[in-house]
């Protein structure tokens, strides 16, 4: 069974976000980039499937991105971190991820004739939370798409999955190959061990050029969110004041 895990390279949640002078892009200097937390769920699930059947499962990790100038902004370093979970090889498509259509087109072009049974994604990346790339890849390859998956089990070429929906969940059966985007629950996050980290250093990491694709969406500018004024402090003995404030705003 061949698995492709696609990951995003995103600013650490705790990082301070600033934009370039023209507002068009994130100011990358001084920012630590991590593997998108939702992608960690699929990496962990792929590692579990690999552990159960080491010779029968092959896992490729892929990211579309260019390495930044600082060691905390290296796509390659994040791909090696993913490999350290016991996965087999990594691919970096050497291009700036300009929009979701561009990224999805790169991934689909790479995956098209490789015979992957499972294409794994996080449900969204924490930079723009767009949830766009996995569904676009599924459509480009004409594969069944299961979004917000919280579990997947595979038996005799059929997958049984659960998917989060409004106020509940769906249990789904699908043939392989399929495209999945993961919600929390798919697997427990894993931390690579020392042996995994050492082995990852010598695993293959292929850097391949992008195919030409015209993006369809542009970022005009970014701006910081409107500043939040100081909060209004309510005396714990005068909760009625809070009730009145909320009533004035039409909230109760």
């Amino acid at each position: 069974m061949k698995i492709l895990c696609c990951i995003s390279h995103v600013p650490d949640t705790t990082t301070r976000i600033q934009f370039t002078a023209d507002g068009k892009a994130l100011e990358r200097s001084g920012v630590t980039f991590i593997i998108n937390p939702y992608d960690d769920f699929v990496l962990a699930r792929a590692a579990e499937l690999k552990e159960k059947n080491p010779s029968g499962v092959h896992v490729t990790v892929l990211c579309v991105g260019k390495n930044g100038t600082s060691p905390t902004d290296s796509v390659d370093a994040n791909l090696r971190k993913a490999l350290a979970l016991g996965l087999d090889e990594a691919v970096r498509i050497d291009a700036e991820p300009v929009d979701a259509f561009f990224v999805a087109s790169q991934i689909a072009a790479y995956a098209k004739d490789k015979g992957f049974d499972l294409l794994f994604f996080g449900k969204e990346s924490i930079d723009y939370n767009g949830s766009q790339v996995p569904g676009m890849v599924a459509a480009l390859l004409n594969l069944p798409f299961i979004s917000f998956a919280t579990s997947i089990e595979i038996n005799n070429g059929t997958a049984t999955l659960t998917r989060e929906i409004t106020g509940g969940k769906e249990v789904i059966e699908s043939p392989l190959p399929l495209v999945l985007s993961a919600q929390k629950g798919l697997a427990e996050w894993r931390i690579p061990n020392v042996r995994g980290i050492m082995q990852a250093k010598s695993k293959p990491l292929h850097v391949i050029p992008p195919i030409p694709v015209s993006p369809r969406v542009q970022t005009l500018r970014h701006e910081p969110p409107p500043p939040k004024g100081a909060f209004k402090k309510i005396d714990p003995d005068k909760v009625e004041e809070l009730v009145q404030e909320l009533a004035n705003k039409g909230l109760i």
Partner: protein
Amino acid sequence: MSAVLVWAELTEGRLKKPSLEALTAGRRWADALGLPLWAVIISDKVPEGIPATLGEYGADKVIKVLAPEFASFSPNAYARALAAVLREKNISYALLPQTYDGRAIAPMLSIWAEAALLSGIVTVPEKTENGFTAKRIAYSNKGIEWVSSSHLPLIATLKANSIVPAKSPRAIEEEDFPFKPSEEDVRLRVVRVEKIAADKVPLTEAEIVVSGGRGLKGPENWGIVEELAKVLGAATACSKPVADVGWRPHHEHVGQTGIQISPNLYVAIGISGAIQHLAGVASSKTIVVINNDPEAPFFKAADYGIVGDAFDVVPRLTEAIRRYKEQHAH
């Protein structure tokens, strides 16, 4: 360029708030372009009263794509149906609510309709010299992004709770659109649906959310959260540590790796306000923080704060709201 199209999502045969919000935004978009607004329903049947409600919220026409296969959800089949409607009706603008299913369909639709996709927008797309422009939230509420596209067709998904549903009644026309999903598009099959406590408000749609954290000390103390939620008509939620230790179910976890919400009112009880938690809730319109630690970082994101013991404050707040509601009941 015949119309602006809105996918009206049926949840157990009903139109829920995200669809009404999308209709409202769609109506404004259509008015700005001088086009009619069409709603599209994909289902095995149209429940009584649905076309009337669509008309009430501004749709001039409802296109009904009906087939037995649509009784359960397949993003592939739904996206194919929408792509067929866009193509055959020569429609350049479509809007979907950014719900679980809307987010599954929209990217597939964008490929099959050869469209651009603006995802998770919070404003009606506006025509500018850069094409259509809209605003969305970026970097876990630490930034705002203005996105644009001059590519047509253009599809957008509207983030929940970003536009207040408004009526704009008109007489609605109905049209059947014959379409049968291919076997390829129903390869995935929903075996069963499990609903979690059907009487509760789903978190992603709730206008008010009451949330508890480690400060509540144990699952046996959640009564005060639930009582407050009940009197407010709110959904209940929790922080990640609380879900991780199993005090509350995972589907209640709001925050970066849990559910992201933007209700009108978020009440945080005994939650310190770690940045990962704020990432999931900071776009709430009004935030009330109740915490006994005056240094809790959550206060920086709050509109109202009470420094005090939750076990003392929350029951009195619940009682005060109940009294207020009784006095102001019609």
